[in-house]
Structures are given as structure tokens and as C-alpha cells.
């Protein structure tokens, strides 16, 4: 699964730490999601979408093989 969190963060001018704090996870987790090492839970995906004011599928997209 791909995501555009890094881009969304840049639009909102947020650091990984800012985003982590706002959705209640560690910075490590944001980094692991951005680098595609970890697929977040639905809860976390929904929280991020809400924060960025977008739909989940605008931020997260399926890749071939998913």
C-alpha cells in the first residue's frame, strides 16, 4: 500500500513529530508508515484522513499485489 502522508504533511507544514503528537502515536510509527515499513490500522488511517481533511482513499492507495 502506498501513501501520501509526507506530501500531506508538507501541505499542512507539519513535522513527523507534530503529526505523531496529534494522532497519539510515536514519531517512529509515522516514519515507519511513510517509508512503507508498516501498514497502519484502520483507526490510525481514519485519524490521519480526518486531520488532513481528506478521504482515506485519497491518502492510501493499493498497489499491485495487495
Amino acid at each position, binding site marked *: 500500500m502506498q501513501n501520501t502522508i509526507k506530501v500531506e504533511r508538507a501541505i499542512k507544514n507539519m513535522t*513527523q513529530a507534530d503529526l505523531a503528537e496529534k494522532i*497519539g*502515536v*510515536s*514519531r*517512529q*510509527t509515522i*516514519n*515507519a*508508515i*511513510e*517509508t512503507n*515499513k*508498516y501498514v*497502519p*490500522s484502520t483507526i*490510525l488511517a481514519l485519524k490521519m484522513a480526518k486531520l488532513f481533511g481528506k478521504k482515506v482513499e485519497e491518502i492510501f492507495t493499493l498497489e499491485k499485489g495487495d
Partner: protein
Amino acid sequence: MRSKLLLPSKFKWIGLCLFIPFLIVGILNRYNGFQFDFLTIVREHNSILNPVQNLTDELALTGSIISLLMIAFAKEKHEDEFIYHSRLESWEWAVLINFLLLLVACWIFYNEAFMDVMMYNLLTPLIIFIIRFNWVLIRNKRSEEKN
């Protein structure tokens, strides 16, 4: 692992501080015959157990297992779903690698040497888990610094 089964994060360091002396006592006991005299117990002769027994090895093994459990089950400072996921994945790795090592060992070691392997095997699942889990955290921290 949801926090129900986990200990406060300071147990990681308490466990580490305890593990080292217990391990040293265990190794000295196994290879140099080191014993604490005050741990010698004498039983009545009609007992089915050994009449004289020293509990240094029991103490070292119990202490090593408990201290490793403390390290393995200590919470991270910020426990969240990624940490939870890494924890479960590391247990999976630990069980798999442990049994692979055991499979190799049962063809290489015999008799007394195999007893040694079995003894170390009491600790290896915990040790492999601790190494794998911390390696994941360190690797992620490094990539975090790069980004």
C-alpha cells in the same frame, strides 16, 4: 502486545542489571564449579532427592530467566500499534530461529554437549526476541533521523 501483559519501561534496565550477574554466576557454576556455600542444603537420608544439594545453578537459571522476562516484557516509552506489531513479529522470528538452531544442534551435539545446548535453549527464545525487537527499533530510529 496490549499493555495488560507488559511491565513498566524501567524494568528493561532493572532486568539488564540483574541478567549480567546471574549469567556470570551461571557460567562460572557450569564451567568452574563455582558454588555459594550458603545455598547448600542437606536433606534427610530417606528423601528421594539427593541428600546434599547446592542451589547455585537453580538460582542462576531462575535469575537469568526472570531478568530476561523483565527485559522482554518491559513497555517501550511510547507504546503504540507499530511497537505492538514489531513485538509480535519479533516473537515469531524468535520462535522460528530458536527451532532452526535447535534442529541444527541436535545433529551436531551429543551427550553432555547436547545438555549444554538444551540449557542455553531455555534462554535463547527470550534472547533472540530481545535482539530482534531492539534491532527493529534501532533501525527505524536511524531511518527516522535520515528523513
